[in-house]
């Protein structure tokens, strides 16, 4: 079965730090096998389907062939053996940044809508214009600073996103270091922003209607994954 696998820079597993044998020009990478009983998250070769990609974003995306009985559990595929078939070149720093932009745009639209509905025009306008105005981001940050923390406001969420997108932290003014100085890679940021935007969409929905979190979260993740599959032109 053909599936997908993300690896960190250097073709290593994020947690295992195992260096995967990569394909040559004319041959797939060597088979990697595990011994013993296959247990999700504990023992086995892990991979994911197209639909699950957004949950596992990392620096490198590979097509992987899985051998043996493939278990599907909790958003992952697990098998006793796998080999890398080809690298998906379309997944790179540029597409990671494009993914982030798309997520943020989607969040802006949701947030602006919720503010308009609440009759908060000034905030809605600040949010809608935050990319196009020269001081748009600063505006959002300043506005967020004036708001009361007790109930999460869309403007505050967006201010959080502005900071996270730069590799920083919510409510922290400090600039993040560059990737090669220990800051997050574009892919790690994409993983973060994708999650955060889904979380924001879900929080906003929850504020409107109790119990709406899970469904809204899933919906936003599905939107993201559809975007990604199309952008990367994934066939399998």
């Amino acid at each position, binding site marked *: 079965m053909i599936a997908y696998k993300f690896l960190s820079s250097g073709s290593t597993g994020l947690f295992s730090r195992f260096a995967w044998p990569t394909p040559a020009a004319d041959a797939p990478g060597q088979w990697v096998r595990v011994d013993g009983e296959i247990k999700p998250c504990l023992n086995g070769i892990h991979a994911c389907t197209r639909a699950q990609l957004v949950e596992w974003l990392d620096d490198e995306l590979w097509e992987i062939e899985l051998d043996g009985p493939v278990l599907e559990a909790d958003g992952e595929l697990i098998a006793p053996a796998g080999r890398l078939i080809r690298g998906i070149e379309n997944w790179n720093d540029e597409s990671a940044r494009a993914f982030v932009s798309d997520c943020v745009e989607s969040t802006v639209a949701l947030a602006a809508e919720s503010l308009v509905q609440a009759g908060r025009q000034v905030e809605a306008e600040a949010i809608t214009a935050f990319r196009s105005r020269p001081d748009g981001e600063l505006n959002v940050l300043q506005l967020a600073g004036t708001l009361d*923390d007790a*109930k999460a406001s869309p403007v505050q*969420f967006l201010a*959080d996103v502005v900071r996270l997108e730069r590799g920083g932290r*919510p*409510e*922290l003014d400090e600039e993040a*270091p560059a*990737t090669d100085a*220990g800051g997050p890679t574009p892919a790690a940021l994409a993983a973060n922003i994708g999650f955060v935007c889904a979380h924001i969409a879900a929080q906003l929905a929850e504020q409107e209607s109790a119990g709406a979190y899970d469904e809204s979260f899933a919906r936003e993740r599905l939107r993201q994954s559809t975007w990604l599959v199309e952008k990367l032109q994934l066939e399998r």
Partner: protein
Amino acid sequence: MSSPETSHARGASRLDERELLERLRAGDEAAFRQVLTEFGPAMLRVAGAFAADSQVAAEIVQETWIAVLHGLEAFEERSSLRTWVFTILGNCARRRAKTEARSTPISSLNTSGGDEREPNGFFDANHSRWASCWTTINTRWDALPEDSLTTREAENSIIESLRSLPANQSAVITLRDLEGFSSDQVCSLLGVSPGNQRVLLHRARLAIRQALEEALD
């Protein structure tokens, strides 16, 4: 850090050990000096984890070797020589620690610096948007230049923070992370449960990381 207890090494080292043991029992001084050179520095380091005073640490090591010599005949070789010697060291050290100022009963969990660590590192559990999330950026240290962790400043901060750990945390991290003993070996050496050992190791590792982070800033 590989321990002699890996399966391939075990075969080879057991053969050497058998011969070494025979020579030791026969009173071969060269053999004794060999074992002393091999184990001594690590023993001193572990003893130092129990005893703040380097004089006391040296005495613990000396007492251990005397006990080893007296126990040579009866040693049943159920474990490796190294494990046996360090078990005796653990016993001597704990005995001494009880009578010294820095003593902390090994099996009791020292709560100092436990839950209070990083009080400002996380958003409050009540935060409306980021409950219990990191407030700070944690840079990745895999991207650091190779020699960042070996600067004098970094080395000193490690030495200092190891020294200021409670004895039980210091003992666990020294045995596990500096000397490469396994979790099971450390539990039996120190007479602690696996759960306790994990907590002690956890706190010790967090303390060293924090000290390094401050030094690297």
